[in-house]
């Protein structure tokens, strides 16, 4: 079964500093990979996604992520963090599962999240 590991539960960075959030996945086939952000009291917003092709993907809000198959990783980066980036970040792997009674389901398996704190 697929799984996602986010080894850092909580990270604190200073505003203007660079950021890297780690994500490792376990999945037998080529994964579909995602990063979501959740601000307090809000739903999850998609930052970026990787399906195939260029292993460096650009997302919204200045974020990028790099898929490294050899390391089973999909780390999220931002060159300069803003105070408004404080939130919880979730990495996810997408899996297509076929069930006879329900057709093809596209399910996301999420990591446990990394809470980012930004100090001024």
């Amino acid at each position, binding site marked *: 079964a697929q799984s996602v590991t986010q080894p850092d539960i909580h990270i604190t960075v200073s505003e203007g500093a660079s950021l890297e959030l780690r994500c490792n996945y376990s999945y037998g086939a080529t994964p579909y990979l995602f990063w979501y952000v959740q601000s307090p009291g809000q739903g*999850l*917003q998609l930052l970026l996604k990787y399906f195939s092709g260029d292993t460096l993907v650009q997302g919204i809000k200045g974020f990028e992520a790099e898929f490294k198959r050899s390391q089973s990783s999909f780390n999220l980066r931002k060159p300069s963090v803003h105070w408004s980036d404080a939130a919880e970040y979730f990495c996810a792997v997408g899996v297509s599962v076929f069930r006879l009674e329900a057709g093809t389901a596209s399910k996301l398996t999420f*990591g446990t999240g990394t809470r980012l704190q930004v100090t001024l």
Partner: protein
Amino acid sequence: GAGVSQSPSNKVTEKGKDVELRCDPISGHTALYWYRQSLGQGLEFLIYFQGNSAPDKSGLPSDRFSAERTGGSVSTLTIQRTQQEDSAVYLCASSPGREYTNYGYTFGSGTRLTVV
């Protein structure tokens, strides 16, 4: 509507009571998902609806949990005889269709359920 709407935003209930959580997906989105987010946990898949197909219920944790989707639109997640371990944020998401586009989830803001 413009986004996925969930109601209520907060629900406090007594142990043993039944609760209903509602999700209004984006108009035209054929796929609808329910996830549960517990404190310190990731998001746990509960159930998936695609169009008029039978739902994928493989993530429902017990038979106290059920969900339906009426007219291919609004969905209701029902938890019977609530237990304290059911306390969590329940998130609903919808997406336009199958395969690649299915991953374009839009999440609602969730319902925070507290069982006391």
